[in-house]
């Protein structure tokens, strides 16, 4: 009964919204502007993304506007408790992504003497395209001392090898790594935070929050229907991203049969990097230098020497002075697939501002997120090039890093995250 009530509580908002849309027809004719009117785009932004499927949602899903990312340490030694949590999480995730409360009773329908099984801050909010994407870190398989913690060591994919140290890394261990991660993306930040908060609560005693990160604006498009957003350098980011409509997803994104252990087939490897941008010095840099460093124009995002944002990068092009139009050390050249045997990444990073740094500067930057079939052939060689030669490094500090194996999708209510791994 509680479930029905709680369903109503979240559904009521959607029903009301629906009424609003219906009302548009009537009021639009009068030319009146009504605050409750919603466009088709707004309806879409509020809608639900299916949790169940062949692949996990939140990878090729058109990048939502907001992020709350969390990494957990597993604190139990009991494998069964961990498996039970993954089951409970999957159930709660299916509910929350559908716009329902985390638990069956709900935020306001239980007995007064008991704490609610949903924290309540998403009451009245639509699903907002919430996706929850789970990954397993290398340390889940073997800890720092090499111990096989849960009898999983044999199942660790070779592709989940610790990332090498890149020149210039100034990583803070306390905000790096993790045994598990959950990426929550939504078009409403409150919905994303609500989801992480409730998962963390369900995990008490089994997992502990190691670090978490908010992202206030997407910096990538993962669908051709989306306009390319800008990062905090003010440049369009993700123009040449791997996108849902691309025909090489099997080659670039999804783990294929035979790549490694079967439990990862249909999954994808996730690399996260928190990149502080020294925006104060960047902002004092001339427009010409900014564009030279990136290799694209700041306005349209077109490659230097070309005219349209989506023009294919021409690395051979030379300017009137005989110099390459795109400098030898420009960011887009160093990262280009032609420099890395065709390797690409599906990026879905987010801008962040974590307050200020005590020196009168914003603590701001990019929380970089990239999915791929094999980091050893994709992220690692690309980042090695960038770490060595990218002139942007002068304005960047890499402060956190994470690597996670995101298993394939949860198929249905009987399935749960990581079932094949723990089978």
């Amino acid at each position, binding site marked *: 009964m509680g479930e029905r009530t709680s369903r109503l509580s979240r559904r009521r908002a959607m029903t009301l919204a629906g009424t609003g849309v219906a009302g548009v027809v009537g009021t639009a004719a009068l030319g009146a502007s009504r605050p409750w009117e919603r466009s088709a785009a707004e309806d879409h932004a509020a809608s639900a993304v299916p949790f169940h499927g062949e692949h996990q949602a939140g990878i090729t899903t058109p990048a939502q506007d907001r992020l709350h990312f969390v990494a957990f340490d597993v604190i139990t030694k009991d494998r069964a408790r961990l498996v039970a949590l993954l089951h409970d999480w999957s159930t709660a995730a299916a509910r929350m992504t559908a716009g329902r409360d985390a638990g069956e009773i709900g935020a306001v329908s239980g007995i007064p003497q008991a704490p609610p099984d949903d924290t309540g801050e998403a009451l009245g909010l639509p699903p907002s395209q919430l996706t929850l994407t789970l990954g397993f870190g290398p340390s889940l398989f073997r800890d720092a001392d090499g111990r096989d913690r849960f009898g999983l060591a044999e199942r660790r994919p070779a592709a989940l090898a610790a990332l*090498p*140290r890149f*020149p*210039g*890394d*100034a990583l803070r261990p306390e905000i790096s790594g993790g045994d598990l991660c959950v990426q929550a993306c939504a078009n409403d930040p409150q919905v994303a935070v609500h989801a992480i908060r409730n998962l963390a609560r369900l995990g008490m005693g089994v997992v502990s929050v190691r670090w978490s990160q908010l992202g206030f604006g997407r910096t990538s498009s993962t669908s051709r229907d989306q306009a390319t957003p800008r990062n905090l350098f003010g440049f369009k980011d993700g123009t040449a991203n791997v996108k849902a409509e691309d025909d090489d997803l099997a080659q670039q994104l999804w783990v294929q049969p035979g790549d490694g252990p079967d439990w990862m087939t249909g999954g994808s490897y996730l690399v996260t990097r928190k990149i502080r941008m*020294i925006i*104060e*010095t960047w902002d*004092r*840099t*001339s427009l010409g*230098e900014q564009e*030279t*460093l990136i290799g694209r124009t700041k306005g349209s995002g077109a490659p230097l020497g070309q005219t349209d944002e989506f023009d294919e990068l021409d690395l051979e092009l030379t300017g009137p*002075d005989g*110099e390459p139009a795109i*400098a030898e*050390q420009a960011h887009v050249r160093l990262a280009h697939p032609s420099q890395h045997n065709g390797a690409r990444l599906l990026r879905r990073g987010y801008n962040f501002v974590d307050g200020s740094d*005590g*020196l*009168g*500067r914003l603590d701001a930057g990019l929380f970089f997120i990239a999915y791929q079939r094999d980091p050893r052939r994709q992220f690692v060689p690309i980042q090695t090039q960038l*770490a*060595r*030669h*990218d*002139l942007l*490094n*002068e304005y960047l500090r890499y402060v956190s890093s994470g690597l996670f194996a995101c298993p394939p999708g949860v198929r249905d209510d009987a399935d749960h995250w990581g079932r094949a791994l723990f089978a």
Partner: protein
Amino acid sequence: MRTSRFLAAVAAGALATAGLAGCGGKGTDTATAAGGPIAVKADDSTCEVARTDIAAGTATFKITNSGAKVTEFYVYADGDRVLGEVENIAPGLSRELRVELPAGTYQTACKPGMSGKGIRNALTVSGSAAPLTADAALADATDSYQRYVKSQTTALLEKTGEFVAAIKAGDVAKAKALYPVARTYWERIEPVAEIFGDLDPKIDGREEVIEEGMEFTGFHRIEKDLWTTGDISKDGPLADRLMADIQEIVAKANAEKLSPLQLANGAKELLDEVATGKITGEEDRYSHTDLWDFSANLEGSKAAIAALRPVLQNRAPDLVGQLDTEFANVETLLGKHRAGDGWKLHTALSQAELKELSDGINALAEPISKVAAVVAK
């Protein structure tokens, strides 16, 4: 050190120096007035310049240091634009400075202990003085900065030599004292040094930017040994390599002529260095002598701007006034942290004091970032 440098990429930029560099000498005949070099008697508290009213042309000063501290001698034009200088005049030594001086009013300065504004004297140069044309002023900026680089590299070689000798002699205390001093000359001209991208990381690379397969060498490697273990018994080869790398970069730097645009960018980049590396204490993380580098970057930035001053004065006088104000402000803020002839350690400053310095650098760097566009007009 910066991980990489863009300056090299703009070296062939819009303002090619080739056409301008040729007209550096302004043609005034060499005319050191009768009586030979102008004697300068310097000690730890005085600076007696034998003549303060001279004729236009090439003046030769002979500075004798009878004090106990190492001193320096400068000839400044308006806004502390360095027209000539001699660094590192050890006690008991004499050095000569030849400097071409058109008619005008100048200041001379001795800097016992190599710090502060120095002991100043007015210097009047009489004769005919035609105002520089815009192109000539730009060319003069290039020449003026090149003189600055030469004076700094001379001292860099000498002080690095002393530092290396102390390391090889196993004299930890002396090496520690010389470390920030030798770096001062490096940090002042870093925009030039960074043009030679492969040498910069060898000389000034920080531990985390060293790539796998590349050896961690240079100042910071020796700094680490000096301040962490204090064991420099195996650092002789490292010291020799530092010296060789410094010799190589000095030879290259002296042959380099920076375009006015490069000067403008260099001035800004030196402040970026302060903002990202020195205020945070990242640069000298073992010795915590970051404020020495801070001061040197600031002086280097000021020297580059001073070289451009005639151009700026002509094209954007308001900007010059703003720069003077903000340079003075940062100098005052930094001056609070002086300790003897040197500086307090980074670790001795409170967060509030660091923030005050950071705010000062930001206030200065904003107007400095506008200089390049003025120069490129």
